[in-house]
């Protein structure tokens, strides 16, 4: 979905409804929106021109830790939440809202995403738990809790942006019961074509394949769950929304259930997640049976702490 700095919440809600309604009419029960979508409202609150490049980079110049900026972001956060709730209710569908600012009681700023039920009620939140170096310089804080959120499409675990590169997050979420990982990604790319090919024996990976395989695909294979990767396109962002599954469940044995046809246009992917088929895969090849918890306890988390020192 293409991001824009929005004048107000109403126009964002309308864009979501217009884009998602066809999928709902075809039976979609849950829709995952892309990263950073909810930050769009913050742009006008903070006086950013509509034509300014979209992304946290533009906000980064505003010193997010300043009190007036914090107040504006808090209002934008409330408004974005309302947008998602209204859209979910209007559509009669569960929504994973695109991530948005969230300001805590202690005025700490997070990138966070809500899950909203079809009645327009927020059922859970997930804050981004790992930040890139540049995100840290913008004054973002990282979340320290993980949530598994029950929906009709499965038990969701959300990975926001950088979180997907840390396998700890996906593992914890799946150990806590998630059977669908949702990754909200956003990538500025140099325009390379992101094509999914069904690789034959002697075929090598394209750069685009390697990139998405190194993200949610990898998590899905390691944890034997479904994966929904929503992406921003346009405004300097490119990528293909993809629905992942364990290799054994996909016709090309490639781990891809569906993938967007383009990497730079609005599109909604519609896929059915067969949880019984997933259970069959887990029963046949139960990789969690071989987890070596005693070994992990021997090294974790102390080894991380030692490295940090």
């Amino acid at each position: 979905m293409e991001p824009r700095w929005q004048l107000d919440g109403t126009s964002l809600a309308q864009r979501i409804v217009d884009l998602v309604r066809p999928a709902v009419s075809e039976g979609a029960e849950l829709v995952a929106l892309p990263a950073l979508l909810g930050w769009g409202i913050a742009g006008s609150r903070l006086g950013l021109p509509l034509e300014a490049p979209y992304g946290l980079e533009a906000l980064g110049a505003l010193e997010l830790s300043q009190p007036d900026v914090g107040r504006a972001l808090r209002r934008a956060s409330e408004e974005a939440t309302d947008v998602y709730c209204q859209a979910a209710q209007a559509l009669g569908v569960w929504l994973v809202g695109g991530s948005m600012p969230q300001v805590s009681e202690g005025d700490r700023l997070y990138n966070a995403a809500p899950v909203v039920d079809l009645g327009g009620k927020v059922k859970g939140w997930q804050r981004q738990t790992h930040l890139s170096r540049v995100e840290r310089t913008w004054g973002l804080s990282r979340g320290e809790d993980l949530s598994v959120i029950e929906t009709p499409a499965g038990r969701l675990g959300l990975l926001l942006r950088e979180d997907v590169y840390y396998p700890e997050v996906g593992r914890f979420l799946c150990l806590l019961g998630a059977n669908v990982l949702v990754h909200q990604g956003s990538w500025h790319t140099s325009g390379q074509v992101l094509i999914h090919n069904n690789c034959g024996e002697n075929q090598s990976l394209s750069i685009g394949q390697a990139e998405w395989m190194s993200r949610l695909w990898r998590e899905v294979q390691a944890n034997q769950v479904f994966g929904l990767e929503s992406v921003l396109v346009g405004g300097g962002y490119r990528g293909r929304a993809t629905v992942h599954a364990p290799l054994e469940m996909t016709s090309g044995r490639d781990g891809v259930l569906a993938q967007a046809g383009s990497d730079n246009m609005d599109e909604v992917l519609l896929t059915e997640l067969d949880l019984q088929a997933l259970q069959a895969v887990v029963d046949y090849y139960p990789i969690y049976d071989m987890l070596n918890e005693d070994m992990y306890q021997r090294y974790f988390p102390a080894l991380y702490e030692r490295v940090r020192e």
Partner: protein
Amino acid sequence: MNLGMEWLAIGIAQRTLLARVSPGSVRRQLTGKHYPSAPPPDGRRVRLGVVQLEGRLYARLSDYIEQVCQLTRRAVEDGAQLVIFPEDTGSYPLAGLIPGIERLTSGGKGKPPSEAVREGSAPVLFLFRILAPAASQAHHVAFSTLARSCGAYILAGSTLTLDSARRVYKEVRLYGPDGALLVTQRKTHLFPTEALWGMSHDEVINVIQTPVGVLASPICMDHTYFEPVRIAWLQGAEIIIDPAADAARYEFWAQRRGVWSRVQESPAYGVHALMVGHILGNEFGGRSGVYAPLALSPNGDGVLAQAATGDAEEVFCATVDLEALRAYRRERAPDFNVALYRKYTPQAYMQARAARQNGRRVVA
């Protein structure tokens, strides 16, 4: 057979096999040959030699020794400073030393050995206990001698070892250019079939600093899990080696679930050395490779070199740039959320264990 009789039988069989693999005869066979010399390491770039070994049963130890000798020489002739062999290099092929191995693995029920081995009706653990001392000794003497003869580091794949309680482990061994055994690594995550046989796993990941880089070598199934590789990485591993033997035909995507994925999470070079061929009717397949984080691979695909086939014996070499890796790791140092890990380790693992229904993970 009661337990006492079984151990008596194992003891007799062990001694009989050990007599067939005397260290002196292995050394004599390897002495007097011409060996290439591995270039001395400079600490910045390392040339890796990867052996994609055809697994077959050797009834004569001398044939096995000749084969691993030739493969080592081929790698070192191509400039390899560290030569890497796959999992089971020092076990399955040497099972051919056990007289009547095919009949014994049929489980006495006339089943094809491949089926009996897969379903666990073959007395695999019993046979491994018989084989372990001889296989371990032959493997050690052969690779220690080869490493010294070529002045190379050799990651000699795995062999079988027994602990004092007679538990059976797969154990990888690294030899230095003076022939010294530098470090061992036991498998920490068993393949379900190995668990079915009654093999044991360890709880330690060893990392060793050498002139050819900081090395770690979790084994095969270990690379299905991020944890052992993360443990190695957090201890400084720069080259993470996956000696593997997958009892399956090569599949492009399935293979990418292993060490290729792991070195994207824990940025390091990854080496996948695989066994191919057929042993006791079981097919082994895979395309060995040398991998890197995407940004450190010339084509952006995380692949530095790979075998041409997924089903034939090959030796190939690739040079990895340790300086480039170190610079990349400094620039892209991860920012771990230790508070988060503290909160969920081991609680999340325990919660998952508690949530199982009749021992089964429920995802539906």
